[in-house]
């Protein structure tokens, strides 16, 4: 088959000195679905941004349909027939579907005004041509995310894209929407288009891709036919060694309930009921897993538990003491810590030193300050201990956080939070986007904390992680508890699925609380 795209020896170094692509080469055959997989930070997105002209490579060549091309901007890429659908969609939310479709190529009336009717016609025409249904006159902001994504795909097709790049398209979709998207992609392939599909979800890759390119540490490890590889093979190539999905042993003793949530509801600014009468307990010596498709209220629940968001109704108690209405600091002082979902936004201040990050929750306490004065010597000593104990790769306590890798940054966050010796640990996606070594370490630390009698609440989008660590699991769907599994050893990801999708639901679970 003809190669539609070929990139050779691409080198990309970001301004902070991070090497994102190191002599990366990839060849994509025409009329295939080509998956690019790798862990977060492996360099997949950077490579695509270079191909689409958003980033410029320092070295390397790109050939499109056999000809060498210089793509300096997305405009260049679109002109030669490359389209890209970004992870975070790039549509104007206040414009209609039709207006977004023609943006930059507007049909005009009297050479000045947008011809809205014509734009609508164009949209319908393109939409029919490719069999992708979209409502031309609806505003983007009123559409569900799956439909918005469809608009982006259509927009690229309308600009005559022959090669379509989709950057982690399924990360924002529900499983049903993913199904629809995959059907669309297969259809497009039938019509002669080529698709590059970025993902780190192995089952999706197996399901849809013809060819697979695996990236790790800014390099391409291998490119093979998807049929030659099992999910396990891909996983191994992605992380560079064998990985275990083995579950940790169940706790020996279970203690009393430390964190107790009753009838918790939350209505957001847009008057949407995000959480609906949730009740559950987290006991000493257990890990309670919260499973669910992203966007079903997990983020809000975690922020409410940690005092960063105020609930509309309900009770939260820690050892029987009320937490609602308390400031984040008071809640932390009562013995709760928080490994946040977004470590760069909440977990660290990138441009400050490690020691300044370590003392965030304790700088005002004895041992770190005396009166108003910070005791920098003691703080440095404390930081050195944490760096050693948590095996953080850093030159000194004065190293800037921004100089560390994702895994090490997460270790900084985990080190700070766990070293505050909390009773309750709220961990949100604690291993998202970090290397396997760091992931194993975080898992081990959580297990150790559990065995020391801590109560751990684990929210994660990664079902393997949930099943590996949890003692019990609750499933959240649409802000409600859809199911509750007392014994994790007997269930698989497949058992959770129907509850996560809202297909099935335990009756009266939300009201009932198991002790």
């Amino acid at each position: 088959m003809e190669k539609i795209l070929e990139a050779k020896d691409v080198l990309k170094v970001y301004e902070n000195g991070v090497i994102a692509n190191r002599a990366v080469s990839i060849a994509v055959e025409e009329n295939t679905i080509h998956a690019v997989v790798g862990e977060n930070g492996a360099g997949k997105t950077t490579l695509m941004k270079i191909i689409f002209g958003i980033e410029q490579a320092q070295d390397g060549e790109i050939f499109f349909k056999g000809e060498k091309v210089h793509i300096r901007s997305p405009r260049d890429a679109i002109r030669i027939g490359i389209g890209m659908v970004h992870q975070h969609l790039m549509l104007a939310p206040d414009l209609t579907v039709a207006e977004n479709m023609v943006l930059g190529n507007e049909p005009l009336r009297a050479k000045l005004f947008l011809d809205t009717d014509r734009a609508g016609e164009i949209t319908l025409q393109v939409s029919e041509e490719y069999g992708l249904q979209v409502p031309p006159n609806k505003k983007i902001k009123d559409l569900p995310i799956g439909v918005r994504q469809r608009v982006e795909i259509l927009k690229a097709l309308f600009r005559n894209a022959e090669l379509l790049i989709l950057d982690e398209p399924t990360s924002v979709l529900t499983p049903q929407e993913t199904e629809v998207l995959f059907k669309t992609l297969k259809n497009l392939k039938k019509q002669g288009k080529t698709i590059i599909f970025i993902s780190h979800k192995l089952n999706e890759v197996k399901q849809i891709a013809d060819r697979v390119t695996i990236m790790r540490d800014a390099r391409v490890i291998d490119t093979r036919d998807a049929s030659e590889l099992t999910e396990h093979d891909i996983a191994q190539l992605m992380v560079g060694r064998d990985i275990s999905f083995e579950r940790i042993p169940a706790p020996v003793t279970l203690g009393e309930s430390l964190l107790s949530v009753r009838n918790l509801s939350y209505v957001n600014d847009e008057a949407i009921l995000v959480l609906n009468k949730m009740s559950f307990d987290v006991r000493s010596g257990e890990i309670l897993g919260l499973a669910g498709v992203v966007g079903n209220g997990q983020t809000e629940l975690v922020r409410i538990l940690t005092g960063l968001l105020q609930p509309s109704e309900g009770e939260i108690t820690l050892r029987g003491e009320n937490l609602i209405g308390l400031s984040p600091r008071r809640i932390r002082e009562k013995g709760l810590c928080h490994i946040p979902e977004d470590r760069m936004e909440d977990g660290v201040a990138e441009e400050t030193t490690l020691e300044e990050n370590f003392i965030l929750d304790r700088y005002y306490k004895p041992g770190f300050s005396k009166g108003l004065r910070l005791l920098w010597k003691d703080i440095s000593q404390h930081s050195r201990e944490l760096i050693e104990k948590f095996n953080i790769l850093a030159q000194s306590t004065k190293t800037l956080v921004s100089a560390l890798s994702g895994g090490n940054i997460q270790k900084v966050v985990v080190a700070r939070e766990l070293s505050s010796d909390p009773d309750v640990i709220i961990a949100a996606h604690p291993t998202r986007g970090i290397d396997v070594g760091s992931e194993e370490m975080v898992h081990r630390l959580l297990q150790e904390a559990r065995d020391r009698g801590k109560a751990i609440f684990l929210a994660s989008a990664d079902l393997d992680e949930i099943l590996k660590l949890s003692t019990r699991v609750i499933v959240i769907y649409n802000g409600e508890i859809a199911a509750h599994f007392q014994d994790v050893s007997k269930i698989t990801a497949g058992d959770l699925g129907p509850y996560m999708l809202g297909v099935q639901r335990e009756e009266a679970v939300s009201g009932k609380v198991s002790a």
Partner: protein
Amino acid sequence: MEKFLLKYFTLIRVIIAIGIGIVISVFLIYLTSQEPGFSLRSFLLGPFLTRSRLAHLFETASPIIFCGLAIAVAFQAKQFNIGAEGSLYLGAAVGTAFAVSTNMPAFIHVPLVLLIAGLTGALWSFIPGILKAKWKASELVSSLMLNYVAYFLGLYLINYHFRDKEAGFLVSFKLPETAWLARFIPDTRIHYGIILALVFAVLVYYFLYHTTAGYEIRSTGFNERFARFGGISVFKVIILCQVILGFLAAFGGMTEVMGIHRRFLWQSSPGYGWDGIIVAIIGRSHPLLIVPASFFLAYMRVGGRVLNLMSDVPAEMVMVIQSIIILLITAEAFLSQWKYRITVRQAERGGAA
């Protein structure tokens, strides 16, 4: 070598910027002056050539240091309050009013007048602070607008209630001697204000880098969500840093009144608050760097004045030259491509090893 360049990049950039600025100034002076050699000497060396000009350098630097420190405290919390000018003006006006209407021994009078001026400035700056903390009103806009209000309030206070009708100018009554800051170098106007400025630079440095409140301010500035996440009261930080800003600016303005003019004679706003922003940017909001930055700006100002007095270079061109140099230094992106290329080379080398 390249590692060295990366480490001291900021310093090297400032030096190169000054160099380029001087080259452009030389060019402009040659273009506009009949006697370029003499003019250039006036501009670059002028400030050092006589005792009075040298003294002038110190006198000018002093209020700029105060305002630079004031702005720096707010900038460190990423609060873009530019109200130093208003706080300075109103604080000094109220301080003057208090000084001329009271009578007490100098050892109480001096600190009390300074304190009253500082507190006035702090109170004034509290307004944009509370507006931001409570209702998220942009402190940039509110502090800018309040500068006008402060100016006219101060002007009203002095011109209608404390004006010295016998002076022949629109100025306040002379301060009683008990409220003067002494001049400690004979035949100059260098007064204790400069000592206070240096002391405050150290104090503000200590405050920002060695106290819990300073940590809260800086953490909020680096990442507000991070600060909130860790339990820091961002509300408190926003108000605190702006109150400190107002206090420092007004305190600095008052030292100028008490040490140099000994009466309130600013019919137009003196502009030190704006100079404070410039030195805060040049000094990267670091209190100890603000001192040399302020002396540099003072040197530019004095050099400009000498050039204007002694040579045939038009006053407008003097301002153009000053502005170009300041612009070059404050331009963040200047030479960043160069730094980037070094970073890339370093990374490649590191990657190969």
